[in-house]
């Protein structure tokens, strides 16, 4: 690159440059300082993740993984009557057994509640099983079993036929005996070969159908693995990472990828049934009424895609939320409840996609999946936000029926 000459020419050998008035220089300096300070705004300094307060509802009890790394059981009906009702129980592990950040929803079985977590500072994951009594909704004092896993657990565990499956950041899908925590098998994913190593992380919660576990990974593959043996049934490569939890419906496994494409594959042989492209990543999981898949991309476009559609067919409808959507929506009473990251909660008619009510501006960052229960007057949607508050939404009256602060 040629460097211009800097020699020349003022009487004392000083080069001539255009003089500038002094005070004017203060303006850009002040603007620069303001910019630097703005750079330190909380939104730009992202610290250690603290979890998303995910919830699962079963038998009238809302189970929440808190931002403090505890597990809370809330009696939804009691809270409907009295917002100050005490939790049924709270599990607080000792410091050496701390759970860390909880992103994935708990899995609830007949006898146990299972929860996975990420200790991001140590890059390990924790999996715990808490015994519960369905009748009294009580919990034993100690956890039944617990495991520390190499690689953080971001996705939630899934329970099927006495087995517990969970994907880890070390690129393995783990299968445990749900009763005692004995490891049955592990499946090692392909991993994406990078310049120096392999990208292997699994953040997706597996979906189970007909004895096969389906899950996506950061390496861009969606995998189908036998629950019984841990052997690979098939794998399918997309053009981007997969963090979404797939759904199996009508013989198809549906999921979205960071290549901005939503896929429907034949669940038995991975043949592509159809695809749908959008402008944003797909992070939120899909939900379905059996005939149509409802899902939102991260750009906030909610789409209804019939299972039997063909490539190129337009969606049944689309609805623009206008904000980022991370959380899997909830389908309840022919209505679709969608929560945006900004805290705007919308309710849409599943057949037309039109908003049924004015969206609720909760002004809270919602990233965890929505959980739903009940019908008619008792239809409720439960969700937690990144500040650790769990909410119950009365779908019929379209208002928040109760909130519980889970942080200490």
């Amino acid at each position, binding site marked *: *690159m040629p*460097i*211009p000459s*800097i020699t020349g020419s*003022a009487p*004392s*050998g*000083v*080069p*001539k*440059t*255009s*003089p*500038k008035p*002094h005070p004017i*220089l203060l303006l850009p300096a002040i603007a*620069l300082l*303001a*910019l*630097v300070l*703005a*750079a*330190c*705004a909380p*939104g*730009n*300094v*992202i610290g*250690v*993740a603290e979890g*998303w307060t995910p919830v699962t509802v079963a038998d009238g009890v809302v189970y929440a993984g808190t931002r403090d790394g505890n597990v809370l059981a809330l009696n939804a009906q009691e809270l409907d009557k009295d917002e100050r009702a005490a939790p049924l129980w709270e599990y607080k592990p000792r410091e050496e057994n701390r759970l860390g*950040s909880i*992103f994935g929803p708990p899995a609830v079985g007949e006898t146990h509640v299972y929860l996975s977590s*990420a200790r*991001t500072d140590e890059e390990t994951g924790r999996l715990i099983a808490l015994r519960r009594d369905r009748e009294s909704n009580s919990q034993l004092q100690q956890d039944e079993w617990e495991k520390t896993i190499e690689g*953080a657990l*971001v996705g939630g565990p899934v329970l099927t036929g006495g087995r517990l499956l969970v994907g880890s950041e070390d690129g393995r899908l783990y299968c445990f005996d749900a009763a005692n925590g004995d490891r049955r098998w592990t499946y090692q994913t392909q991993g994406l070969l*990078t*310049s*120096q*190593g392999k*990208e292997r992380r699994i*953040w997706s919660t597996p979906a189970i159908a007909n004895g096969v576990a389906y899950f996506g990974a*950061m390496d861009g593959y969606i995998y189908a693995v036998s629950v019984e043996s841990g052997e690979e049934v098939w794998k399918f490569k997309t*053009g*981007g*990472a997969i*963090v979404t939890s797939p759904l199996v419906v009508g013989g198809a496994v549906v999921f979205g990828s*960071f*290549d*901005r494409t939503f896929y429907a594959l034949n669940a038995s042989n991975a043949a592509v049934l159809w695809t749908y492209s959008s402008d*944003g*990543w797909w*992070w939120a999981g899909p939900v379905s009424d059996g005939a149509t898949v409802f899902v939102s991309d*991260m*750009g906030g476009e909610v789409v209804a895609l019939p299972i039997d559609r063909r490539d190129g067919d337009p969606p049944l409808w689309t609805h623009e939320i206008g904000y*980022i959507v*991370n959380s899997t929506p909830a389908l309840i009473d022919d209505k679709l409840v969608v929560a945006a*990251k900004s805290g705007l909660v919308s309710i849409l008619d599943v057949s037309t996609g039109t908003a049924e009510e004015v969206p609720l501006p909760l002004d809270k960052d919602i*990233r965890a999946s929505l959980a739903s229960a009940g019908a008619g007057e008792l239809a409720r949607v439960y969700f937690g936000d990144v500040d650790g508050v769990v909410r119950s939404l009365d779908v019929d009256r379209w208002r928040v029926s109760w909130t519980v602060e889970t942080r200490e």
Partner: protein
Amino acid sequence: MEYILANLFTDIWNQGILRPMINSLVFLYSVLFSNMGLSIIAFTIIIRILTTPLTLKQIRQMRAMTALQPRMQKIRDKYKGDSKKISSETMKMYREAGVNPVGCLGPLLIQFPIWIGLFQALIQTLPTNPDRLVALSEKLYSWVPNVHEAIPLSSDFLWLNLAEPDPTNIVMPLLVGGSTWVQQKMTSMPSADPRQQSTQSMMLWMMPIMLGLLSMTFPSGLALYWVVSNVVGVFTQYPITGWEPLFRKSTPAVQEDDDKDDEKDSQPEEEATDDRGSTDKSNNGKNRRRSNRGRNARARRRARRGRSRGH
């Protein structure tokens, strides 16, 4: 009002600096063999090219300021004790010479947002947890090809994880410190002002030590940026000054300028001869300085001898 202003500046920061940086890094990553190290190197070179006009301006201003040192000293001597007069005369001198005394700070100031922006961009483009990946999704342009598909990025480069500090804790800090010292030494100008001299020599050591220490705790990607930026700076400076400033001691050059100026007042430069009898006409500036230095040293020695005989 304060809230609106804070939001405005945060938006300007995000939209004007951070987002372009993140998208540039990810795009370069996607075209440079999915290698974040190469992406940072290319990014640094682009930034240095874009800031070249500012850098050249800084060099011009520094040289101009250096050339004015003797005149400044004279003003100080002439109006000793009258700081107001010194100040007004100095400003007058700057105006006449067309020098902006704080003009050389521009490129230095512009570096700060780049450092902070790159620091944030590295953390945000190499997400290690879901929160960071969500934050990254908000910052990617939908119209830039390949950026969405390129995520997640590999942060490995040589022995480094670019999102984490150098695991050896010594190699990158040494490279950062060493290259910063070399670049500063290359760009430093001799000064007649003892205070400026001491500031310069303090900065010559403080900055490398400070950046070296920061490299121990900051992501090694930022350390890589500093090293590459310094190396580019050194090679940009080379055609202007050569390697000479690297081996120059700070004090003689200062005195020599002063002496030269004094001599200029009493004797036209064209007629000056060195001890070997050759005229300065045939010499370049370097030789002239060397001969002046020799003459001045000899004059000082003669003066000392004279004083000691007197005693």
